[in-house]
């Protein structure tokens, strides 16, 4: 389960190429403020992409992760309207996320249902509940502290004005780093890979397969709540269509990062690099006024290209971890 390999090297090279290319081609792309701005759209996606990567490594998938974000954000908004202070609001969000994950995990492990079907169902259910509760309304008026979480810089926190790294990005990288260490340096991580590689063999080796699966779904729910807190703070409002379609972004990041869709293989460092690559790319095209839909078209093509290339090239990039 190597964290670094040929695939990660290629991603790092692509990131360098991207920043060098756009740095020369686009005026101001390499200015510190632009670089800091470029991390914003990727931070929340990085958080859910890490959780998604863990699930895919374990041979599962969570298509409801973005819908869970909407519900968690909604829970924070409702808690605020009920007069709860910020810590209680965040707790409400996390509890909602965990509950959503628990339902997914329960259906998958206790009822023995395939996670793709379960989470297509809960995607509809969670997003539908957000629609029912909010209708065409939006919740706004979040406290200043939450807005700082989404828009402030680490420099503001410690009183160093030149440190313009967004707080969001700091939290996301910390979170992703924690996940990477957990997956690559602890026995639990190795067991998760084992579950994904062959659940039957893993069970016979004494791994509590279903407990890991359930735990991962709950963790994905909590990660969605964290991402929802960051996103809600950044945009300052909750709408039922919050983060719509982000589950696909998270899957794209995980797979581009080299995680095998069949489970059992994938480096978390690769996922982090893929998130940075896609984030930088999206931001650069944004600066060039390329419409969002064209960007997602290119990302779709990239995703397929990332899958086809190792099959076509003589030296396969799909090494066994």
């Amino acid at each position, binding site marked *: 389960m190597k964290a670094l390999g040929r695939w990660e090297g290629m991603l790092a090279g692509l990131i360098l190429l991207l920043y060098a290319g756009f740095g020369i081609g686009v005026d101001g792309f390499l200015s510190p403020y632009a670089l800091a701005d470029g991390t914003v759209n990727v931070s929340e996606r990085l958080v859910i992409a890490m959780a998604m990567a863990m699930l895919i490594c374990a*041979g599962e998938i969570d298509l409801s992760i973005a819908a869970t974000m909407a519900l968690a954000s909604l829970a924070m908004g409702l808690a605020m309207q009920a007069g709860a202070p910020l810590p209680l609001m965040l707790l409400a969000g996390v509890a909602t996320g965990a509950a959503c994950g628990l339902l997914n995990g329960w*259906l998958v492990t206790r*009822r*023995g*249902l*395939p996670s*793709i*079907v*379960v989470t*297509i*169902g*809960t*995607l*509809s*259910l*969670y*997003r*539908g*509940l957000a*629609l*029912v509760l909010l*209708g065409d309304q939006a919740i706004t008026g979040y406290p200043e502290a939450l807005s700082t979480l989404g828009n402030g810089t680490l420099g503001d926190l410690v009183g160093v004005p030149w440190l313009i790294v967004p707080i969001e990005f700091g939290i996301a990288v910390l979170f992703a780093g924690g996940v990477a260490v957990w997956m690559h340096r602890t026995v639990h991580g190795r067991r998760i890979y084992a579950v994904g*590689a*062959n*659940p*039957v063999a893993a069970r016979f080796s004494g791994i509590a397969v279903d407990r890991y699966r359930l735990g991962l779904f709950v963790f994905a729910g909590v990660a969605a709540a964290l991402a929802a807190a960051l996103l809600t703070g950044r945009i300052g409002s909750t709408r039922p269509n919050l983060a719509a*379609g982000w589950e*696909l972004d998270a*899957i*794209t990041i995980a*797979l581009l990062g080299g995680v095998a*869709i*069949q489970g059992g293989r994938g480096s978390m460092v690769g996922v982090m690099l893929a998130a940075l690559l896609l984030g930088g790319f999206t931001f650069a095209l944004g600066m060039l006024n390329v*419409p969002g*839909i*064209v960007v*997602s*078209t*290119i*990302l*779709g*093509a990239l*995703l*397929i290209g990332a*899958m*086809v290339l190792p*099959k*076509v090239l003589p030296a396969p990039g799909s090494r066994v971890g």
Partner: protein
Amino acid sequence: MTAGRFTSLREASLLAVIVALVLLVGWRAPVFLTLRSALDVANESALLAILVAGQMVVLLTRGVDLSVASNLALTGMVCALVGQAVPSLPIGVLLALAVGVGAALGAVNGLLIALCRLPPIVVTLGTMAVYRGVAYLASGGAWVSEQDIHAGIKALPRAELLGVPLLIVIAAGVVGAVAAWLRWGPAGREVRALGNNPDAAVYVGIPERTRLLQVYALSGALAGLAGVLWVGRYAIAFTDLAAGYELTVIAACVIGGVSIAGGIGRMGGAMAGVLFIGVVNAALPVIQVSPFWQQAIAGAVILLSVALNAGSQARTRARQPILEKA
């Protein structure tokens, strides 16, 4: 044969639920029990039925086609643009164009899946983004609005054949043909065998790659056909046409008892799933429940129907990893 009896029991109970739902809604609002309202539901469901017929065949092979809604949007846009540029074109040519373009897009999925051996969910996730993006590029982001839509395309949904709306006739024809192909066509039976046990299917000499290619091309062709009909029905073509509709299509299949794990599923069940979604969507406004409930109800029903099916699904699932790692 227990599997066969199990599915028909499932279908019977789903139909019973639909009938109960219709009667319940009809009791609250008698207007729901009229022929007019039944025709509305059937008309609404016709496009979904066409897409479900294609998706079900893909699901039978253990695949999935997430790109159907994007394919629909792109093909619909191409037909709208061609129809706008050449208003004198006969409608038959446009229909052929829709099926052709759709099949070509589906074949791209099929080639990547069958020849490059890529997982269907990843491939169609990618082409889902690409096809919709190409629809944007083809139109430059502009809408093709009502007055610019080819008269023939607009006339399609209003046309009738022996008093039955043409949309329903087309859907019935497509569904019947695909069902017959699955039931009696040697290729159709091979498709089901392929999903039931891919390794055994290859051992007995089923041409796996050819069948996969055909299946995705079929799903694409039907998405293309649905695309031109969709443009006609709503008299508009734009980039976000039917965005997210792929989930509704898959939901109808799952509610109808088609297994995502492949090999299991019948056209009758899938059509009951289509009918269920059509009835629920039509019933909500009638009993004055906010349409915002639609999505939540669909989700709950998917979960309920797969949980009810847990026995057979769990068996397939338990079998699967061992086979795949073999």
